[in-house]
């Protein structure tokens, strides 16, 4: 089978000593990033993108991706031991993980979290390995109208998945596109939205926006709540591992369903965070002992963790095949790939097969390594959180500033980072979702050129976007997803009126 031989080749690339070393170092960095609130998967990757300039692309993408896998594994540690989510996708596991830890079963909670992550990763990477080549073949038939249609579908799905208000999601998306457009227009050479100022001529880089919005913003919000880092001490013993495995087998249906929910949401541009909540909700509603939830139910830990990791892994699938990142962190990784000159999409499979399969192979290797690392060293990673905040915090800001500067060697980017941080605080508080804005910023120029080329092809007729056989169903699906909640709301209102008062 072609897939099989490619997979073996990929594993071969991934198991080269240099790549394994990069993977281990990046996994450790990723776990640390996942454990620390303020440094997240998205901006952790963003800060380290400039380091990848000095590496070959395969090693570079392994590094970035391993930070993501490490952050996925590590996010649960802070949630379970300190009741503080180290990552947005680790919020759901605080519900049952922390009560379990307080009841003295911290080791078991950690084991459940890590093993669920591992299982979610395996399901995700199996789906990835089998479906990536198929989707890539299909995507080869995409022209500008189809690409534009996929973008519309992506953003339409995001407006409904991210947060409560579709209007606010739309605003975030439009703002992201506007930010992406500031600076010189490639096609016409004209300066857009610079208002005569020189700093704005360089435009906004998504790395700076991500570090500011997700990193600095998160720090502001953390100190606002005055969080004290007093947590439960934990050790992971073999007894915990044994008990954890038994629990996993007991809840194998929830484990599998949660992983699949995660994979499904990872393929869509939602990511690990909505996946974890959805899986938690699913586990709770289908549980025999609902009232145990919130007090330390095992499946309350298993479900969100498996889903989060399944989502993270499957977020790679649309990214490498279609060029549509499946999660905000994957958007950053994709941005890194674009900077390295590798445009994700169907051509990547054709022209750089060894890179793609090396990457896929590394996902297999890294997630196994990550599981071992996190199980063995969890207490060590947790100890990082005991460092006094007033030491940790300025160092985090220092590292963020380096990340922001290193993108384009401009001081203004560090100032932008702080401004994005303030924006992030307001957006978070007033329910404007940031992930769609980042996605629009990353995809902005690609989306605009696809739309432009499509319109030129159609000679100005917007119906070109509805061209059968591929673009039409994509656009219809986009419109359907976007307007579905509006229709259901109207239907409810109408049937409420008909009911007797």
């Amino acid at each position: 089978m072609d897939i099989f031989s490619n997979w073996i080749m990929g594993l071969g690339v991934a198991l080269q000593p240099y790549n394994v070393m990069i993977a281990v170092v990046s996994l450790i960095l990723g776990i640390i990033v996942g454990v620390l609130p303020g440094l997240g998967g998205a901006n952790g990757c963003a800060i380290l993108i400039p380091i990848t300039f000095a590496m070959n692309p395969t090693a570079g993408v392994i590094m970035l991706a391993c930070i993501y896998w490490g952050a996925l594994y590590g996010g649960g540690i802070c949630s379970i031991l300190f009741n503080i989510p180290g990552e947005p996708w680790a919020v759901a596991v605080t519900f049952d993980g922390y009560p379990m830890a307080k009841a003295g079963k911290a080791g078991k909670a950690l084991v459940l979290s890590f093993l669920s992550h591992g299982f979610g990763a395996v399901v995700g990477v199996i789906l990835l390995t089998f479906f990536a080549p198929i989707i890539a073949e299909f995507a080869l038939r995409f022209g500008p109208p189809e690409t534009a249609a996929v973008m519309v579908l992506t953003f339409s799905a995001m407006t409904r998945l991210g947060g409560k208000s579709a209007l606010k999601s739309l605003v975030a998306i439009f703002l992201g596109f506007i930010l992406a457009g500031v600076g010189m227009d490639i096609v016409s050479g004209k300066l857009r939205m610079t208002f005569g100022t020189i700093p704005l001529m360089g435009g906004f880089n998504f790395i700076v926006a991500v570090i500011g919005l997700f990193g600095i913003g998160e720090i502001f919000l953390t100190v606002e709540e005055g969080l004290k880092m007093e947590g439960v001490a934990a050790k992971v013993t073999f007894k915990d591992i044994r008990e954890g495995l038994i629990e996993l087998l007991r809840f194998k249906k929830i484990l599998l369903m949660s992983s699949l929910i995660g994979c499904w949401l990872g393929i869509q541009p939602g990511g690990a965070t909505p996946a974890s909540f959805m899986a938690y909700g699913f586990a709770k509603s289908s549980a025999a002992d609902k009232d145990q939830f919130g007090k330390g139910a095992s499946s309350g830990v298993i479900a969100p963790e498996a889903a989060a990791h399944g989502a993270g892994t499957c977020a790679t699938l649309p990214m490498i095949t279609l060029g549509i990142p499946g999660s905000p962190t994957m958007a950053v990784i994709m941005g890194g790939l674009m900077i390295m000159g590798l445009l994700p999409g169907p051509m990547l499979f054709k022209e750089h097969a060894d890179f793609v399969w090396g990457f896929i192979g590394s996902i297999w290797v890294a997630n196994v390594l990550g599981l071992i690392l996190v199980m063995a060293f969890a207490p060590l990673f947790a100890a990082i959180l005991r460092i006094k905040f007033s030491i940790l915090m300025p160092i985090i800001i220092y590292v963020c500033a380096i990340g922001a500067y290193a993108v384009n060697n401009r001081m203004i980017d560090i100032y932008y980072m702080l401004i994005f941080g303030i924006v992030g605080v307001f957006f978070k508080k007033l329910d404007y979702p940031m992930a769609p804005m980042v996605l629009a910023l990353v995809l902005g120029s690609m989306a605009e050129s696809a739309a432009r080329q499509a319109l030129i092809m159609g000679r100005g007729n917007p119906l070109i976007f509805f061209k059968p056989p591929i673009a039409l169903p994509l656009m219809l699906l986009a419109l359907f997803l976007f307007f579905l909640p509006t229709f259901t709301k109207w239907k409810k209102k109408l049937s409420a009126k008909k009911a007797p008062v």
Partner: protein
Amino acid sequence: MRKADIVLALFLMLIGLLVIWDSARLGYGWGMSGPEAGFFPFYMGLGVVIATFFIALRAIRIFRKEGSGKPLILPGGLSPMLWILLPAVGMLLLTELLGLHLATVVYLAFYMGVVGKINWTKVALISIIVPLAIYILFDKIFLIPLPEGVWGKNILALVPF
């Protein structure tokens, strides 16, 4: 918080209007060979204006019915946030003069010593070792140049490597 909602929506609407105005300058119709430079931004700006209009409307309606709602910033929360923001801005301004690493030495020392009230030996050790380690890592090993500031280069030249 509801008032802030209205204010932010109006502020974003203002940004949308600015974008539309600039797109008008660039032209948002059909040019010689395709959409003009302002085409895409125009519609994005228009989308922002329309969406924020409805958001502001909804926010005003809720505000009239239910009043102010929760406070935007938790009580006692503004002070810690400013204690992060202002020293960070100070560090950036200092960076323009001294370069990032030297400015960070001052920043770390200030934050740990004054805000965190950690004992000064620890402060001195960490404020020097961490930036030094990062300097070696980024400048020498990864070869990524970081801001040197107006005087930074001269001061760093005193360091023997």
